[in-house]
């Protein structure tokens, strides 16, 4: 996590020409087509958005300490949770791992000099920034209060807030996702190094490929849906308008056709990071490579068939509900297969407790909880009671924050020496991992109980009997907030003062570790030729250095 600009003048002593010191100046960053520099541009911008979204979350939790609301008016509270959702989902979680780690690593892992379309890659970042500006403008101009789901007819006819700028921001940012996904798909298909067959690819690449498929097939649907929503709000007539026979539920269908697979946009790259971390820190080949690889693809495809489970109580046909329910159970299975394979990879390994590994273990634990609580919501009978309550909030935060953000932080800690050429203080990093794990559970576990007790989400005020659990959750949130600030501080510190990192500080396999840290502009002195499977630790002599 970085907010300051990278100080290239302080590059490690005796350093080579690399992508950070090849050129200087603001222009060399803003007009770069180097995928590694673009990854850093994304890193800075999404970190900024993460803390904006996190700030809203902190205000919400503070407000909910008192049943009658401790801080703000209900109208303001409604804007807080909406802006928190919009910013975190569309501007942090969706681009998080793909646009930063994916951008940095895809060409390096497959032995290419850059992505297939470097200028398109830079354009994606600019599109992201323009979309983010629209959304931040909406925040400044008074906020938006529809919930991140923009359900009609509230969003189209009843809300008096800045719905159009927000929807426009999300619409624009969608094209950034589409172009990023397009770039990855073409790069992975066409630019692999000689000898790097599909089944020799690192599993991170499989995960990014699966994610890109969702970007390509899902994002256009949310784009057209928000476009139609904007038109309806402008013209006061449109295809979701009940007055001319429009069906507000159709909006939900189109919305969730993207937004459910989008959950897998967030978690699939995390799963890819996980496969890299678990193998490296146990020095083992992944257990069941092809099962892990194909589970990524099957998750991507099945994820498009389950969106109706968000709508079990909306008056959707109960027969359609039945189909969506069985498919939702099915999507749980490839995820379970992955967890079992990661666990089995540890067997007879040589396991070290470096900071990225602690994040990885945190991920497995929280993701298991998050995934299993999903079964409650795939089950029709229990979903009726739990839908729209804090149980949902807890469930998806276990997946998106416990899962995706833990994996993101694990990945950042793992590749940080490669990205910056500097090491961070390992003790602080382990401490932060622990604080985040504890804070997270304290924040969100009570919300499972709140949901089962019947407290609906998006409540600015609530009956007094729910106060104890809400206070616990708020206390946890403050610990979690501090947990996220610690890495921000020591990672920023390490960019200037951290000891220089060698090309391969973890003793990891993978093409990205064969080049110097930080890598040269074109990644490799010479395009490598691959002759072995991924994660072949048993037959390698690679050591830390």
């Amino acid at each position, binding site marked *: 996590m970085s907010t300051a600009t990278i100080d290239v003048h302080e590059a490690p002593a005796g350093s080579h020409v690399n992508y950070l010191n090849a050129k200087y100046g603001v222009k060399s960053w803003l007009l770069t087509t180097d995928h590694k520099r673009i990854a850093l541009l994304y890193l800075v911008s999404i970190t900024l958005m993460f803390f904006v979204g996190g700030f809203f979350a902190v205000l919400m939790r503070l407000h909910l300490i008192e049943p009658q609301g401790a801080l703000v008016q209900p109208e303001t509270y409604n804007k807080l949770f909406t802006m928190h959702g919009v910013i975190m989902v569309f501007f942090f979680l969706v681009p998080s791992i793909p646009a930063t780690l994916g951008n940095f690593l895809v060409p390096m892992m497959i032995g290419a000099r850059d992505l297939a379309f470097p200028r398109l890659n830079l354009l994606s970042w600019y599109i992201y920034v323009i979309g983010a500006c629209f959304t931040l403008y909406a925040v400044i101009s008074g906020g938006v209060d529809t919930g991140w789901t923009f359900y009609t007819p509230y969003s189209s006819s009843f809300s008096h807030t800045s719905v159009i700028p927000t929807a426009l921001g999300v619409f624009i940012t969608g094209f950034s996702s589409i172009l990023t996904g397009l770039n990855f798909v073409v790069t992975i298909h066409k630019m692999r190094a000689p000898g790097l067959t599909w089944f020799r690819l690192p599993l991170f690449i499989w995960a990014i490929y699966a994610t890109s498929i969702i970007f390509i097939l899902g994002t256009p649907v949310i784009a057209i849906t928000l476009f139609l929503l904007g038109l309806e709000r402008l013209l006061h007539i449109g295809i979701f308008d009940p007055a001319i*026979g429009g069906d507000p539920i159709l909006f939900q269908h189109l919305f969730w056709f993207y937004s459910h697979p989008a959950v897998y946009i967030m978690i699939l790259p995390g799963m890819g990071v996980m496969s890299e971390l678990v193998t490296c820190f146990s*020095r083992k*080949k992944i257990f069941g490579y092809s099962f892990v690889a194909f589970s990524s693809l099957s998750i991507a495809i099945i994820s498009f068939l389950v969106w109706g489970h968000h709508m079990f109580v909306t008056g959707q046909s109960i027969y359609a509900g039945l189909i969506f329910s069985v498919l939702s159970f099915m999507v749980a299975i490839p995820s379970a297969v992955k967890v079992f394979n990661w666990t089995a990879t540890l067997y007879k390994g040589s396991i070290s407790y470096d900071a990225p590994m602690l994040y990885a273990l945190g991920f497995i634990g929280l993701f298991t909880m998050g995934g299993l609580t999903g079964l409650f919501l795939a089950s029709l009978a229990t979903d009726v009671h739990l839908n729209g309550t804090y149980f949902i909030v807890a469930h998806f935060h276990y997946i998106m924050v416990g899962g995706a953000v833990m994996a993101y932080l694990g990945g950042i800690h793992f590749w940080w020496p490669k990205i910056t050429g500097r090491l961070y203080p390992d003790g602080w990093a382990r401490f932060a991992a622990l604080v985040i794990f504890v804070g997270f559970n304290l924040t969100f576990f009570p919300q499972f109980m709140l949901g089962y007790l019947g407290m609906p989400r998006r409540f600015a005020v609530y009956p007094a009997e729910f106060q104890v659990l809400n206070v616990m959750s708020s206390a946890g949130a403050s610990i979690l907030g501090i947990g996220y600030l610690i890495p921000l501080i020591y990672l920023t510190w390490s960019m200037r003062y951290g000891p220089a990192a060698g090309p391969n500080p973890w003793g990891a396999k993978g093409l990205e570790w064969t080049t110097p840290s930080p890598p040269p502009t074109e990644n490799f002195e010479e395009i490598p030729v691959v002759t072995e499977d991924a994660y072949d630790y048993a037959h390698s002599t690679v050591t830390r250095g």
Partner: protein
Amino acid sequence: MIGSLQFGWNFLCFAAMQAPQLRPEAASSIAEGVDHLYFALTFITLFFTFVIFSTILFFMVKYRRRAENERPPDTGEHLGLELAWTIIPTLICAGLFVWASSLYFENSRPPSASTEIFVIGKQWMWHIQHPEGVREINELHVPLGVPVKLTMTSEDVIHDFYIPAFRVKKDVLPGRYTSLWFQATKIGTYHLFCAQYCGADHAEMLGWVYVMSPADYEAWLAGGSTSQSMQQAGEAIFNKLGCASCHLSDGTGRGPSLVGIYGKQETLKSGDKRLVDEAFIRQAIVNPNSVALQKYPAIMPTFQGQVNEEQVLQLVAYVKSLASEERKTDAK
């Protein structure tokens, strides 16, 4: 063996139900069933989380790195294991799906002899009307032990009618009817929430459900001030709009006779068969063309805009009463 499992399971459920503050009040006939499924799911979650956590911790300790130059040997692949941990979760999921779906279908089907109450949601209050004509706002009085069916619609945005103690929830949509039913099993006062975000005072759109003994309920109904029942109000609107000029009760009019039509299967112009229920009657009033019957010309104009949602509900109540009168005649 099975007996002891059953005993163990009952004990677990009993223990979970006794835990204070962890289980919401269960006051309807379906709550027990939903809770049993919930406990089973909780048990599965805890079990697998425990298994995975303890395995990971065990491996972490047993196989911790003891020397920097360690090279653990390859443990290879294991197809049997892969299949096992694909198939076993699949079977568990299949079992859960069957359990949850059949329970859901059972819970979705109202008993035929239900008391009907009508609900209109609007920003940010619940309007409720009993068939006898008694109206209430943000309060719902229901008799104990009697199945109650709610027919619901919204005047503005999407709301959601949620009574946690009954484990029932359903979205309330503009332009459409949805329904839910419950049978209260415990006298008391329970929360009523709006569970679909609906604007500024969403969190204040709440109320109370009062479950009363049937005798108290009758007394409460009698004490309510009301000029006419919903059915009478509906009849008045029916006559005012001139519906009877086409819908002659002997079936010779330009439109179908409405006597006894409620609850019948009718054939539409498209050839589809549709059950005439509340939603159908509403559709026939606001969008008649979409449910035009095969045997009649599609000439009925829409009454959308001429009647509000409350009046539509009263018309629905009136048409339904025509059905029960016919049944009475049959009985004679």
